[in-house]
């Protein structure tokens, strides 16, 4: 079943840079998709449009049956609550602790405190940061911050998980641990779209791979065909 469909999408920034052009794409529920391509080819722009951080200049973007481009500002949160995002720059709340950062994604739903606590601890254990729950983002290394961002993105069990270089700052061993976590989440039914520069990871995982070039789809490798 189709979860995401992009039809003739174009994105030109206010500066006049065209980051995405004539892009068509379809992703099904439960898929694990890598998006690769050289720097500046539009990977981040593409995924930002999925949760409406950026609006497409032309074309249509449907996520889970919702026309994201047409969503009003006041309603955007509805789609964002169904999507977990690991941002390329983490976007952690600087004045909140690791625990608070992760808990916040649950608090906006009004979930009971003890339930929040259980979930947050579980997910921080999963990413190997349980011993840092009281630290502030500025007191963490890049890789640790990245893991907090991953924990926050997956804590409320999103239908779709979007990761912009979630292993960019991690050593190969930790990277593979994170990939194992993502694979498990994927097996439980979450669709995953992951942007990466790491060819090793892509080869290791044997998933569908979309190669972008100058804002277009250059190649779309079926699961297990990328070598």
């Amino acid at each position, binding site marked *: 079943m189709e979860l995401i469909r992009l039809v003739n999408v174009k994105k030109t920034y206010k500066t006049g840079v065209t980051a995405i052009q004539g892009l068509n794409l379809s992703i099904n529920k439960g898929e694990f998709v890598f998006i690769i391509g050289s720097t500046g080819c539009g990977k981040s722009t593409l995924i930002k449009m999925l949760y409406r951080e950026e609006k497409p200049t032309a074309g249509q973007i449907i996520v889970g049956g919702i026309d994201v481009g047409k969503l009003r500002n006041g309603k955007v*949160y509805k789609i964002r609550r169904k999507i977990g*995002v690991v941002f390329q720059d983490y976007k952690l709340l*600087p*004045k909140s602790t690791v625990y608070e950062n992760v808990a916040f994604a649950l608090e906006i739903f009004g979930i009971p405190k003890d339930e929040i606590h259980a979930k947050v601890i579980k997910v921080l254990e999963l990413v190997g940061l349980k011993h840092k729950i009281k630290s502030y983002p500025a007191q963490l290394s890049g890789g640790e911050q990245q893991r907090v961002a991953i924990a926050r993105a997956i804590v409320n069990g999103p239908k779709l998980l979007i990761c912009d270089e979630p292993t960019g700052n991690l050593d190969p061993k930790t990277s593979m641990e994170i990939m194992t976590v993502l694979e498990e989440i994927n097996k439980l039914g979450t669709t995953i779209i992951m942007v990466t520069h790491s060819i090793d990871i892509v080869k290791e995982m044997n998933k569908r791979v979309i190669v972008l070039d100058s804002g277009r789809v250059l190649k779309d490798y079926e699961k297990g065909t990328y070598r």
Partner: protein
Amino acid sequence: MKTFRIIGRNIRDAFKGVFRNFSLSLASISCITITLIVVAVSIILSYNVDNFTKLVEKDVTIVAFLDNELKDEQIDEIKDKISLINNVEKYEFESKNDITQDMMDSSEVFESIMKNWSEEENPIQNTFQVKVKDIEHIDSVAKEIKQIDGITLVKYGEGMVEQLVSVFDIVHKICIVSVVALILVTAFLISNTIKITIASRQREIGIMRLIGASNLNIRIPFIIEGLLLGALGSIIPIIATIYGYSTLYSNFNGQLFSPFIKLIPPTPFIYTTSLILLGIGIIVGMFGSWRAVRKHLKI
């Protein structure tokens, strides 16, 4: 239950917000405090002046003195004429004998002098006591009464009364205008102060929105923060009102210049005024932050 939890968290966040940007919060609070003190003074002044006006209006009477030679039918005729004058609220006949008796009753000195007067010697005249509806036009009523045959003299607090009333009226109006103006200015100032608070948290709000916080999620803590600032800002004005007015009242023995001008008794006046101040503080604070958050809810 869910709503309670969300509100609970928001109140916690609002308290955090107030202390996180303490110097800015203090600026907002001081701003509300100053405004509310002026508002309090205006309310006290305005209500008292209103009260004075009513008291004065209630007290002012035109006294029309009648020629003592008049017969009863002539007095009845005069009474009919007075009753026909516009703006007359009520009138009362007081006979020479009643007045004499009242005066003798009120003082022993008067009694000793007056008890020996014969009917002819008694200089006191029959009178009509007339009250008017609209105090501002009391002079025209007095003139009309004076033109009636058989009236020898008309007396009332000429000039002074109308002047007092019109001064009161001006003070009252100035108070209302300045309160309204001040409230608007404060709402604007609060809005600006909270805007600075928010600007320093713009990134935070952006992140909150990106991970799925709704506009209300984001707005409510700021609005509660505004409410809190308003409530904190009203503490000093409320204390000042309660103690200040009570002290003022007891120092002046509840009256100003003359027993004629009575101050409004402190209870429940100071408490209603305090509630009004708290209400204004809270509403201004909430409105200010509602306005300030608005522009940060795009993307």
